[in-house]
């Protein structure tokens, strides 16, 4: 268990190694018998991977920060409520004490709860190897289910999230089989700039669990932009959504059900956003 990046690099160069942070994905996967790596390196003690920093127009969440710490953080609560709501719906209290945002991103599950918010917020992942640093937009980092652009000599150090002051409403909703510990069947993250008259000046949407990775759909956003946030308009957008997503059947739900829900989640924007008194501070 290295305690600094300096100590991590030599261990990472050993053959057949794998890193883990909270272990809530890795240790479950290993138990289900999918091959033991020679060496498991725990990132939990790396000082460089802990904490949340306010950098003015952006927030940096270090990769090893637990979901529980993210939920407790005042910057996240006030400036990034779309992420706070997603994290609140992730797993259970002990899972949120153990699991990290870096682990959620690197697992690259189509159902990963932090991913749709990170897509609409246009977050960037920060990667580091012994010799170099690089940054990638979240959408370029996630390649497919369980697949990312990370190289074996790299780790994820954190995620840079713009505060997006041009959007005054944020929303996250997840539909699962039950309230707690339910992996999402469909989820929706939305950023909206709503005028005082109720017009959608601008909007960004991202769905989880309805494709191999998070689904964004510019054509759906185009249907909504410049129009009032009303049920008729959302119905039209829901139709466009059902055409845009490509869900699969699995043990949790059928593709048709997911397609239906992906559209229906939009209707609730009218309820949740129009009636919600909160307008984010700029």
């Amino acid at each position, binding site marked *: *268990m290295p305690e600094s990046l300096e100590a991590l690099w030599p261990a990472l160069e050993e053959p057949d190694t794998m890193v883990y942070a909270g*272990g809530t994905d890795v240790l479950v996967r290993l138990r289900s018998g999918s091959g033991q790596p020679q060496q498991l390196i725990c990132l939990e003690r790396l000082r460089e991977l802990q904490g949340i920093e306010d950098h003015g127009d952006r927030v940096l969440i270090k990769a090893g920060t637990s979901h*529980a710490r993210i939920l407790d953080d005042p910057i996240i609560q006030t400036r990034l409520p779309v992420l706070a709501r997603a994290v609140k719906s992730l*797993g*259970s209290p*002990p*899972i949120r*004490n*153990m699991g990290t945002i870096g682990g959620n991103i690197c697992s690259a599950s189509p159902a990963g709860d932090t991913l749709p918010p990170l897509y609409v917020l246009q977050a960037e992942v920060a990667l580091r190897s012994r010799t170099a640093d690089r940054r990638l937009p979240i959408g370029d980092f996630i390649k497919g289910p369980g697949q990312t652009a990370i190289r074996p000599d790299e780790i994820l150090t954190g995620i840079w999230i713009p505060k997006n002051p041009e959007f005054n409403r944020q929303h996250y909703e997840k539909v699962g089989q039950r309230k707690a510990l339910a992996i999402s069947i469909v989820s929706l993250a939305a950023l909206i700039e709503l005028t005082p008259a109720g017009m959608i000046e601008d909007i960004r949407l991202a769905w989880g669990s309805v494709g191999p990775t998070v689904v964004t759909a510019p054509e759906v956003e185009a249907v909504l932009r410049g129009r009032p946030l009303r049920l008729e308009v959302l119905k039209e957008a829901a139709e466009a959504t059902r055409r845009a997503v490509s869900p699969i059947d699995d043990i949790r739900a059928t593709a048709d059900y997911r397609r239906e829900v992906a559209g229906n989640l939009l209707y609730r924007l009218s309820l949740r956003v129009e009636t919600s008194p909160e307008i984010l501070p700029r």
Partner: protein
Amino acid sequence: MKIRLSFRLNGNPIELETDAERRVVDLLREDFGFTGTKEACGSGECGACTILVEGESRLACLMRVGQLEGRSVLTIEGLSDGKHLHPVQQAFVEAGAVQCGFCTPGLILGTIDLLRRNPRPDREEIREGLSGNLCRCTGFQKIVDAVEKVVSSPAEGSDPCPVG
């Protein structure tokens, strides 16, 4: 691979050498005989293996022994002083929130973590706070009643949220 470990377990300093690949739940049960830490699902879904590490609830079935190094661990065996039950244990008894008792250690430790974060949870918050712990036989009504009991009449004297 063997590793040397030192940590605190229920207030006592521990030093030992063991296999790095072992899980915390096995170490506690096999080496210390602390069978209050139950294993049911082994995959994070039921909360039967809940322990407190530095006062935070964690799942012993998803931890490797190395993660204990330098930390303070509390299991259900360390909760009472041997003479008096901890107020949360007492409330579970009084509310009839225990049937077979399999889930109980995890639920009690989960409750202590919940009360650390939120000393006055309402019923909805209690349900949310214990959502990682499954009970197959008592039913959650009485468990929520028990936690409500602790909230409404906090006991004097004992530490409501011991770290271990």
